[in-house]
Every structure is written in C-alpha cells, then in structure tokens.
C-alpha cells in the first residue's frame, strides 16, 4: 500500500513524462528567463573556466604548447597524487557508510521517542560551528599530551597519536561529529513521513519490528538515502578544512588528501599538472555520480 501511494505519485509523473518532447520543450521555454541569469553565471564562472583548465591540461605549463598527455602521465606517475587519491577515496569509502549507518540507527531509535526534538537540535548543533573555532579545542583534546590521551593513560591504555597516525580516524570522527545531526534529521523526517498506518497494518499481518523495518521503512527511505549520500559526499570534501587548520599544508601521510595536493600545486603554480589532475578528479566524481544516478533510476 505504501508502494501504491508512492507508485501513484510516480504514475503521475510518469504520465507527465509521456507527454511529447516537443510539448515539453515548448512549455519549458517560458521558464527560460528564470533560468538564464543563473545559468549564464554558472556557465561563465564555473563551466567555461573548467573547460579552459581542461584545455590547459593538454598544454605545457608556461609556454602553453600542446603536449598531449604529458601532464596526465606526470600526474599518474606522481607519488603524491597516488597517495592523495588513495587517501581521499579511502576516507570517502569509510565515512559515508559509517555515517549513514550510525545516523540511521540513531534516527530509528529516536523516531520512537517522544522528546526527540531537543536531542535533534543538540545533534544538529555541531554543524553550525565554524571549523576555525574548534581548532584549538581539537588540539587540546587530541594532541599527544591532550585530554583524551590523558584519560587513556589513566585508564592504562597508552596514548594514541591522534595527530599522527591516528589522524585519519580523528578526521573521520570530526566528520561524523559534524554531520551526524544533519543526517539524523534527514533520516528522521524520512521516517516520519512514512505513514504509521503502514507499519501498523503490517504488524497486524504478523510482521515483526524488524520486518517492519526492513521491508517497509527502508525501501521508502531510498530518496532520503539519495539526498544523504549526495550531501554527505559533498561534505566529505569539506573535512580538508579541519585537516589544514590542524596539520598544515603537509600533514601526516594518512590524511594527505587530494585537496592538500591541489593546494600545494597551486602554491607552486604547477598549472599543467593541476589541470590534468582536476580533469581526473572530475571524471571520477562524474562517473561516481552517474553510477549513483543509474542505480537510483534503475530502482525506480
């Protein structure tokens, strides 16, 4: 039944998509003026420059001569690039699932509670905190002689070098701390939008809590999952700020992210390599997003 509701809506839209392309195009024309200013800006400031730098990726740095794939070769052979890409991918691969899972669990539990609003706000709060604000506190807490290590030593566990080898996990933790609230909120609203009657109906059919969860709730949350994935992915790049403010331009190996690399190359004005690398990253993200969309669309 839930499906029906959803399907019903989908039908509507499907109906709409069945209308002829020509008509659609004609209709759409009236919205053009709305789109134009923004689109022009986007094209001028984002798309065209990017195309330009893509062009540059095939040229040498200073003299701007065609050099084919030289820059790309340089990039791929570059150790720093490999490290950065590896770290960034690793980070994303760890963070996203972790965040999604943890936040879902919390959201699910929270959805059962009554005074959820306060907790929601509290969890949401870290998102509002500017990164620069927390740098000193992070240092006090997580430095080798910081509070956490103090507690750990007291408990006999020995120190963890949060700002050294453990910096990767520190960043993961920081990321989750910041984004937990947002994702929980998203999950919550998603869960709450599911009519409770659905679950009740299932229960009367003999379904248990878990089954309710797995077969009713989860599927309906796919849109939410989509949004969460996108936004979390977006935010996962922002963790560079913390890394930079805590550890500078050349941090520990494990957290040398792609952004560090770009920043350093930029500082050295190594434009050819940067352009090539930018194109590479773009491709990767593009592929990932396209895949996501494909998976998404296929489900529907």
């Amino acid at each position: 039944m839930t499906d029906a509701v959803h399907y019903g809506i989908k039908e509507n839209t499907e109906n709409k998509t069945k209308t002829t392309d020509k008509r659609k195009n004609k209709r759409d024309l009236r919205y053009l003026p709305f789109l134009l200013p923004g689109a022009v800006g986007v094209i001028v400031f984002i798309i065209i420059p990017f195309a330009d730098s893509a062009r540059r990726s095939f040229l040498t740095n200073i003299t701007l001569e065609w050099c084919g794939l030289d820059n790309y070769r340089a990039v791929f052979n570059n150790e720093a690039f490999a490290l950065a890409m590896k770290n960034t991918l690793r980070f994303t691969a760890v963070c996203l699932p972790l965040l999604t899972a943890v936040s879902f669990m919390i959201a699910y539990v929270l959805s059962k509670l009554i005074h959820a609003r306060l907790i929601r706000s509290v969890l949401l709060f870290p998102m509002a905190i500017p990164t620069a604000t927390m740098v000193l506190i992070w240092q006090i807490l997580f430095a080798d002689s910081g509070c956490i290590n103090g507690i750990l030593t007291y408990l006999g566990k020995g120190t963890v070098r949060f700002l050294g080898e453990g910096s990767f996990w520190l960043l993961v933790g920081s990321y989750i701390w910041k984004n937990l609230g947002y994702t929980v909120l998203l999950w919550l609203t998603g869960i709450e939008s599911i009519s409770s009657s659905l679950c009740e109906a299932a229960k009367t059919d003999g379904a248990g809590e878990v089954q309710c969860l797995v077969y009713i709730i989860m599927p309906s949350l796919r849109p939410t999952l989509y949004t969460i994935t996108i936004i979390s992915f977006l935010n996962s790049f922002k963790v560079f700020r913390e890394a930079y403010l805590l550890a500078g331009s050349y941090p520990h190996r494990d957290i040398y992210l792609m952004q560090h690399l770009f920043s350093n190359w930029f500082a050295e004005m190594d434009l050819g390599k940067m352009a090539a690398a930018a194109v590479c990253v773009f491709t990767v993200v593009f592929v990932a997003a396209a895949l996501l969309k494909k998976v998404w669309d296929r489900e529907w």
Partner: protein
Amino acid sequence: MEKHNGMTKSASVRWFVGFLCVMAMLSLISRQLYTSKLALVTAEDIRHSKLSHTVNCAGTVGCDSVNAVFLPEGVLAESVYVHQGDKVEKDSRLLKLDTQSLKARYDELESERQKSLENGDGYGSEGASPVFAETGLRITDVCVKAGDKVSAGDELVKFDKSHLIRLINTLEADRNKDIIARNALSDKQAAAEADEESMGESYAGQIDTLDVSIEEQQSNIDRYLVILNSGCAIKTTMEGTVTRVEAKAGQVTGESALMVISAAPEVSNGLLRIDEELEKLKALIDADGLVLSEYSGTVSRADISAGAVTAEGAALFIADVSEGGIYFSGLADEKSAKHLSAGDIVELYFRNGRLRTASAVISNFTLRDSDYRFEVPLTEETFSGEMPAYGEIGMMRTSALTEGEYYLISKEAVHGTGAKRFVFALEETDGFFGREYHAVKHDLNIEDENDTYVAVSSTGLAEDTPVIITSNRPLTDGARVRLSVGKVNDESEK
C-alpha cells in the same frame, strides 16, 4: 539548549540584529581605544652625504705691518681728526695736541734731565777718567756741570787764591825749617868726621832723611806754585764730556776725584729716552701741536680721544694694508684642527654678529709647538664697509665636509649614550587596515658626529627606511605606531 528552543524566531532575529549592532559599535570603540594607545610619531629620512663639521675658533685681528704712532706721555690732546677705519695718507693730519701742555711737559722733562745728570744717573761709568786735584785747596767755583763738553785747556775748578798763598807759605816755612835742621846736621857731621868717632854715621842717615823730606816738600810747593801761577784753577787736558761732578764750591779738596770726564761718554737709557722725548716735544711744539701721519694706511685702532691725556704706549695704530694687510688669526684646538686647512672658506663674526663676513679664506694653517695657528687675511673685499679694529676679538666659523659620504641620522632620532646608541626605524607592513607602521630598534655603529647628525657607514636598514624623530610615548621595539601627517616624504599616504 532548552532556552534556545523556547525562543521564538522573531526574538532570535532581534537578538541577532542586536548582536550585530553591538559588534558595529564595538568596532568603533575598539579602534579608538587601540589607536589611543599607539604612539604618534614623526619620522625623517636618512640622508646620505658628507658630514659637515662646524668649527668655531676665536681669534684676534692683527696686522703684520702695523705702524704705531707714539705720542709723548702726559700731554693733553686737543682734538683728534681720525677714527678707526679711516684711511690716512702720509702727512695727513692725525691729531692736535695742546701746546701749553706740550710746553709744560717739555719743562718737566728738562728738569728731570737735569736732576738725573746731577745725580750722576746720566752716564755710564765706562771709559771715564777722574779728575784729581791737590789736596787742601779750597774750591771757589765749579766751572762745569755734568753733561758739559770740555776741550783741552778749559777751566774746570777755581780755587781760592789767598788760601793757596797761605798754604804755600806754610809749606815753605816748614821746608825752611827742615833746611836749617839739615844744614846744622851736616855741620855736625863734618865736625864728627874730623873727630873720627862713630857718631858720624847716624848723622848721615838723618841728613838723608831730611834731604828727602826737603825734596818732597819742595815738590809739593812747586805743584801748588804751578796751580797758583796758572790762575788757581784746574784745566782739563783732554777733550770729552763731564759725566759727573763731585766737587762743590766751598769744599776743600781731598783725596777723591773732583769730577769725571769721559772722552766717549755712554749715555744712560734714561737720559736717552728723555732726550728723545725732549726732541719730540720740541718738534711738536714747533708744529704747534699738530701730529701728522708718517705712514699711509688705515687707522686700525685709536686709543686717544679729544680731551684725553696721552698715556704710555701707542696712541694710534696705522695698518699698512698695502704690504701684507690685516689678519685675523688665532689658535685652533686639536679637534677643530682636524677640519681646517689652508684654503678653506670661513665666516668671521665680530661684535656679536653685528659685523660679519662670509668670504674670508684661510691663507695659512700651521702647526707650531702643538698649537694650530690659522691666519685669515682681511681685505676690502672681505669687509665691505666697516672693518674690525686692530686687536678686536672675533669668531671664525667654518663648516668642513668629511671626506667620505656617510648615512646621516638626525640626532633627535638617536637614543642612548656613548657607544650603545640606537634609533627606531619606521617599518611598513601591510596590515588589516592597510599600511601599518612599526618601530623597530636598530643599534648604531657611529663613526662620526657633529652637533645635529650622527654619521654611520652602514645602517643595517633597508633603503629609504625613515627613522623616528619624535614620539609622544616611549617606544618599544616592534611596537605599532601611528605616523603623524607631518612626514615630508610621505606623499602617497592618504
């Protein structure tokens, strides 16, 4: 957090706006508080050039060929026709002396002369021959006095004739007695010889003695007779000047000399001077007291004025500018001497700056006995118009440039003492409000200095960095400062 949830949206908005307003206000307040703590400074650029040293030396105006005009002492000047600075030609009128006082002075001197002659102070005693006379003569007249010239045969002293005759008679009577005695004795001797007794020898002795005495007496008598016969006077045999007279009328001659005559008498200094004065006075009297200049030149100093009595020393100085001219000269101490050399152009100041010139040139600069002496000739070009008087004291001022070029820092900017001196340099940085200035301390290695600048060969500062001259607060190294608008070179600061 509960509090936050309880707040309504509009309340939050209001609080937010309020917060922003408070921040805006505080931004102004903080600016004011911050800048009020900043020192307000002025700065000046460092110059790169040679250091000038000002040398001040005192000296006096002198003249190599200065002719002094001497006037007799003690004479009243009736009028003075020239002043300091006047040009005079030969024989131009200088001044007129009062003839009466001239004459009075003349007489005074003459009597002085007399007195000294009489005192025997007129002549020296070299080459003098004393004049003796027989003793026992009574002087009636002394015919000469000291200073008289005599030639052979002149009468010097006259004696009393009757006194002499009486003396001669006495002497003859004594002689006659002796003759008689002798004759008697000789008779006795002849008789004794006939007797052939020893008593005859002693008689011979006695007779001889008597003979001698008779001869002596006879010569005395002869001498006196000569005098008697030659007019009872002593006549000189030599030519010369009577330098001293001891004899006086009424005296009876004794052993000592009556007077002293000298063929080439040595006139004493005193007498000479008096004679000179007398000569001058005589000449002046003849000229009716008018004193004419013997030289041509410029009156460099006049120590005589109308109505004043002449004093010892020169009354006027006439500088003969044609030959060598007037000089300003003096001594320079070692420190100043470093910066002086012949050929330097100097400034001279007299009378507190009222009389000055800027175009004098040192002609000589010599080292003598560890004293540095400089000479600056004063010519008509040097002083257009009034010239400083001879003997006037003035100041020489010059500024000499050092050989090398240094970085000159105004002394106002230099702090500290002795070897440990430093300046505050004004350094610019780009700050949150545009250009920021900081005071940065720099130690100095001072090579040379004068009154207004210290000179260093390297500042350790970047090119064109100014140094802070004044500040209204004590400065600390690295402190931020505000630059006052009065900075000369800061054209771009708006």
